[in-house]
């Protein structure tokens, strides 16, 4: 509240001063001058900081506070009254012998497998296509545009289309696999049972490879052509050019790209929710859906918050380790 007040007052004061000192041009009014010297950068950052605080930090702190409370439907109306249960929610979440902990651990493994597979393949497909698209050929512009379609489509519409295609009896996937190519001996289920994991991976790759493609393509265009020319004069083959020029130049981009893809995929909520609804099959029970179900469908918000905080800690640790690891590697390769 006070923060907003300051921001709204300052321009006003400045305006007043400018009006007052109408004739004396060139001389900066007293108050803005002081702000200009010391606080202006901070002042300009303030709106962003306030918003960041309101939109990200505050809900996160509230979520953390909730995780220490027994917040169920009985207290949702006045959640600050929910009883303080200390670490109970956490203990339940990490008690891997009891059903809730066991289910959480299971969904954690599923998510990890899903993420590694989806990110790895998205990166591979994206990079491969970007490299191929470097050559100039007829229709390249058109192809590039088509490649970006999955990235540009609204997630919901795209995933629901996939859900239709994965239907057992009327879906396109079974129509092709079973009716036309006769690969399967009977129509398979994709949205329930064990196959749903692969359905999830396929949609996730389809959704995220264009981003990898876009990033890698942009990075590739920044590599000076002369490097390749010089290399080929020196007798380097295609593979050597990729290994010695392309890959090292892509390194900074890949470092960020893989991290971002990992975080997005690990937290992906849209894909499983639209494909499977609020209760995903066991084999595709991603952690985001699992936490959602724990909090919003069984009305145990405290427990759900505790699981979210655990997830946050896990991802922070992974990110930190990843950054230490990659920057160390970078240092040695640079120096």
């Amino acid at each position, binding site marked *: 509240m006070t923060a907003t007040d300051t921001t709204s007052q300052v321009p006003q004061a400045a305006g007043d001063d400018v009006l007052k000192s109408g004739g004396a041009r060139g001389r900066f009014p007293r108050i803005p001058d002081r702000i200009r010297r010391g606080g202006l950068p901070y002042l300009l950052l303030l709106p962003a900081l306030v918003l960041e605080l309101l939109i990200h930090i505050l809900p996160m702190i509230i979520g953390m506070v909730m995780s220490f409370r027994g917040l169920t439907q009985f207290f949702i109306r006045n959640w600050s009254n929910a009883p303080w249960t200390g670490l109970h929610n956490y203990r339940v979440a990490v008690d891997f012998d009891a059903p809730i902990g066991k289910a959480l651990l299971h969904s954690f493994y599923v998510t990890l497998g899903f993420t590694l597979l989806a990110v790895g393949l998205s990166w591979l497909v994206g990079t491969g296509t970007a490299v191929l698209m470097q050559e100039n050929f007829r229709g390249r512009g058109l192809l590039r545009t088509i490649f970006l379609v999955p990235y540009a489509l609204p997630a919901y519409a795209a995933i629901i289309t996939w859900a239709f295609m994965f*239907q*057992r009896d009327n879906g396109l996937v079974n129509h092709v696999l079973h009716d036309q190519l006769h690969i399967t001996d009977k129509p398979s289920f994709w949205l329930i049972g064990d196959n749903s994991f692969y359905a999830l991976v396929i949609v996730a790759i389809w959704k995220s490879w264009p981003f990898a493609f876009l990033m890698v393509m942009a990075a590739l265009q920044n590599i000076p052509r002369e490097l390749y020319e010089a290399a080929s004069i020196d007798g380097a083959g295609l593979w050597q050019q990729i290994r010695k020029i392309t890959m090292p130049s892509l390194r900074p981009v890949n470092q960020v790209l893989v991290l971002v893809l990992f975080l997005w995929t690990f937290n992906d*909520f849209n894909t499983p929710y639209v494909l499977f609804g609020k209760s995903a099959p066991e084999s595709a029970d991603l952690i985001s859906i699992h936490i959602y179900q724990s909090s919003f469908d069984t*009305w145990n918000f405290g427990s759900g918050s505790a699981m979210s905080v655990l997830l*946050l800690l896990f991802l922070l640790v992974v990110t*930190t380790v990843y950054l230490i690891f990659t920057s160390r590697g970078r240092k040695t390769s640079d120096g």
Partner: protein
Amino acid sequence: MRRIRAAAAVAITVSTLAGATACGGGSEAGGSNESPKTLTYWASNQGPSIPADKKILTPELKKFEKQTGIKVKLEVVPWSDLLKRILAATTSGQGPDVLNIGNTWSASLQATGALLPWNAKNFDAIGGRDRFVDAAVGSAGAEGKDPSAVPLYSLSYALYYNKKMFADAGIAQAPATWDELVADGKKISKNGTSGKWGLGAEGGNLSNNIHQAFVLGQQHGADFFDASGKPTFTSPGAVAAVKQYVDFMGKDKIIAPGNAEYAQNQSLSDFSKGKTAMVLWQAAASTFASQGMKPEDWGAAPVPVQSGTPGKGKNVNSMVAGINMAVFKNTKNTKGALQFVKFMTSTDEQKLLNKAYGSVPPVTAAQSDPAFNAPGVKVLKDTLSNSAAPLPQVASESQFETTVGTAIKELWADAAAGKAITTESVKAKLTKAQQQMTQ
């Protein structure tokens, strides 16, 4: 440089995750009003579409405005969003004045304390509690507490069957017991070789799974909750009920395996297309009509029982389904809200609205209208007054739908994949569901 990059990455992590921690917080305030001359009303999506609902309700709201001078702002909320919207409104305190709730949520929402309790005084303001069918009021809150809502549209389950498919298979009349249903179903499906199927199911729809399991449970003497409100999902009766239901696909092979993934009423389209001979459904007439079936193509009969005929006691053959009308406790206009509920539950409006939606009026006086004695609707009406029971009115009903509904969904997937459904496998799934309830 390195530090900046690390900070940026941490910032990405934190902001991506903030979404997870705080997800679901996006409450859309319905705007509780300060002035007594307006009301906000969240109607649940009852008709074939939201515009259709608006078309049905708007003239009635105009009528109400003419009578009382109170303007009602209508918002029709899809089912999939309704409970989330109510929860958000409850947390923020910014809800509508009047809203529709599914009657199975009554006790869960009652526990939040967000809804106005319907004590004798409030009931008097709308003409008294005895105007309503008893079972309908019974499904509006926990026993021994003032109901959290007032019944608006009542529904029950019936067995719908395709007359021509029955005749083709040489079946003279609708089955009255499950044994007969299985026998009839087998005549049609011929162990899954005929390309046609006996019965339809919505395996991916958690609520529907619960409704069927509850009815079969009642017939096996199981309640899913004990008197103190503790879950008893693994009682022999409950296990037998769930197994009996899933066996229709796994053992009896009268349900098509594809039904295991149905959740968007696909079983009704299969029925209309003549692929499936029977469905257990609430008020399906308007859907059949919209899919091109004529009223004489299908028949409606009471849902089968284990043996004998439906009636009071063990031979429950439907849950009391329906939509209730609740008043948000935070309303600044309780008087206007009560007036509006009185209007919507008045005999004339009840006749009109329930006719439009194909449901049964929970107001006794409105039931005398001949429209509710038409063949399809009469079965629903008789079931409601004779052999329907409300789902357990416990605060954790919502969890029950999620956990047990999911357990049954997983069992359908197993049955569809050809895995054996045994008493043990059913019990294991229900044990897991029950353990998730008690933390």
